[in-house]
């Protein structure tokens, strides 16, 4: 929670989609900090705003989406060496397509996109697309850029890298494509890597390999990773710190231990109950969260989770929105069961 040490500090971020049918508040006041070298997990169901939050950090939210409030404070890599004096910039203040923003995007904050299968252009070679990223951010010759790309391919464990560079993405297997995407994201030595459900499209064996690879690279390069997924198992395995989102709001955040062993928010508790465990009695149906996610156009008043919450307090949870408050040492929860602070209307 310290602004001085955080690499990325998102403050009350609001991203709204202004559609003909109304306003969708995809991200509605999200606050979190990511520190250098940390693996920060974000979990939530589809449509909870986790991907939009990350697109906002990169400033690549597509219209009609728009950042309407909040700050995205980024510790900018200064030209001189030494990280102590790095200036903090607010990415929200930049123009999305400005040179200043583009210098950060890809170089300091890189993305491992959601659909690695389709994330390379099918009519350009993989090498062409990676070398392009390197040339954008590093002052090197084309030949040197190719050498960097080649080294990246070796680092992520792509066999016969020289040949693979000149191939097209559709000539590679799913696992190799995934590695190539990671190589591209890492090619400019980013301080923060955003991995948006990077393993949803690959099989379990490949998933395990990719996760191991990410951990190894993260340790070697001391980069921070924001890891977005709806797979709690993956989060438990990867993350140091976890944030749980629901309908554009943060429900709870804390260390991976706190979240998995002492969940506070009823939503987190319900999510964890719905994971099958090896000790469970077989052939009984898993507990589910009753109801379904409300339509984004008519979000419930008050706490967004209250219609599905077993512990909802009538007259309170359906009227006021709880704020995110520190409970215990490192755990933050937005729930009236633990405190009385609410979001200012």
């Amino acid at each position, binding site marked *: 929670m310290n602004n001085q040490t955080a690499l990325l500090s998102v403050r009350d971020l609001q991203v709204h989609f202004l559609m003909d049918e109304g306003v969708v508040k995809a991200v509605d006041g999200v606050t979190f900090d990511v520190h250098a070298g940390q693996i920060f997990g974000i979990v939530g169901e589809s449509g909870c705003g986790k991907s939009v939050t990350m697109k906002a950090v990169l400033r690549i939210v597509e219209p009609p989406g728009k950042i309407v409030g909040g700050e995205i404070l980024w510790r900018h890599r200064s030209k001189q060496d030494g990280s102590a004096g790095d200036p903090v910039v607010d990415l929200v203040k930049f123009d999305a397509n400005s040179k200043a923003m583009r210098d950060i995007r*890809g170089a300091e904050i890189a*993305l491992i996109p*959601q659909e690695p299968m*389709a*994330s390379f252009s*099918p*009519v350009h070679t993989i090498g062409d697309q990676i070398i392009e990223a390197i040339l954008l951010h590093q002052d090197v010759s084309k030949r040197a850029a190719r050498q960097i790309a080649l080294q990246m391919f070796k680092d992520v464990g792509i066999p016969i890298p020289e040949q693979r560079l000149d191939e*097209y993405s559709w000539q590679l297997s799913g696992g190799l494509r995934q590695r190539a995407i990671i190589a591209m994201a890492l090619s400019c030595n980013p301080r923060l890597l955003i991995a948006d459900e990077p393993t949803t499209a690959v099989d379990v064996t490949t998933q395990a390999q990719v996760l191991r690879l990410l951990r190894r690279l993260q340790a070697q390069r001391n980069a921070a990773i924001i890891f977005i997924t709806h797979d709690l198992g993956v989060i438990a395995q990867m993350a140091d710190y976890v944030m749980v989102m629901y309908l554009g709001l943060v429900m709870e955040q804390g260390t991976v231990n706190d979240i998995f062993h002492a969940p506070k928010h009823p939503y987190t508790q319900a999510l964890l109950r719905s994971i099958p465990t090896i000790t469970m009695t077989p052939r009984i149906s898993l507990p589910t969260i009753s109801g379904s996610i409300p339509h984004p156009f008519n979000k419930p008043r008050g706490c967004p989770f209250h219609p599905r919450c077993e512990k909802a307090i009538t007259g309170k949870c359906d009227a006021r929105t709880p704020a995110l408050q520190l409970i215990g040492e490192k755990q933050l929860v937005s729930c009236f069961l633990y405190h009385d602070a609410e979001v200012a209307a």
Partner: protein
Amino acid sequence: MLRFIVQRLLLLPFLLILFSIIVFWLVQAPPGDFLTSYIATLASGGSSINEAQVEALKRQFGLDQPGYVQYLLWMESISKGDLGLSLEYQRPNTELIGERLVLTIALALFAFFITWAVAIPAGIYSATHQNSLLDYFFAVLNYIGVATPNFMLALILMWIAFSNFGLSITGLFSPEYIQAPWSGERVVDLLKHIWLPAIVLGIAGTARLTRVMRANLLDELNKPYVVSARAKGLSEWKLVWKYPVRLAINPLVSTIGWYLPQLFSGSLIVATVMNLQNIGPLLLRALTQQDMYLAGSILLIYCFLTIVGTLISDVLLALVDPRIRMEGV
């Protein structure tokens, strides 16, 4: 790739023979022959010819022979590179077609360049600025462009030019240059006239191509590779040109080959309405006069160019799209 091209080229003669039979049959299909319409023309002019003269002409033109003999004779001369003699003009067909070829191709190329030069940028703008004012403006223009028959447009423009400015905008040359030999001044005169028919001919194609380009690009703009390119820090303008535009144009490249027969045909109706001296009116007249060898030759060349054009399209598509190129090997 090479094997594919050779295979296609080997198939070409067989297709041409098949098409030549169909063409010959079609040209012969209307009742009567060249002489019937020739006699009718003479009669309407007040003169007539007697039976003996008709018989003599019939023999001279080979019209007394059965159809298959006529066909075989035609094929024999074509195999020697001779397209036969026009019955009406009494001149070699090669010559008749040849002298109109330059104008036909010039006009079609102009229309082609106008179409692509306008449609591709307009389509890109519309897609990248979807639902903007200019996008709607282009959309309205495009609907009008697609919906208006081009000969109608030609008539309207001719009427406006004549009634408001007293200008005659038909033809491709000023009167003094129509029969003149080619010279620098004649080319300049051609350029002064050619833009209007080129626009008339190009407008429907432009409208259609703009819509197709817009739709293709809109599909591509939402693809994950665009997001990943943007996340690299590429500027929006460079990104759109390098990735989605390239992919959106790919399918259009395959249509370029189809322009080849169009280059040759000259738009028949517009050319007739605007009195353009290209192959269009020549074909129309040959058909109405039942000048069968001339009409047949033009149609056969048209078929030939269609086949070659399709082959060129396939090759172009393979060249621009590695997915097709590598599968084809």
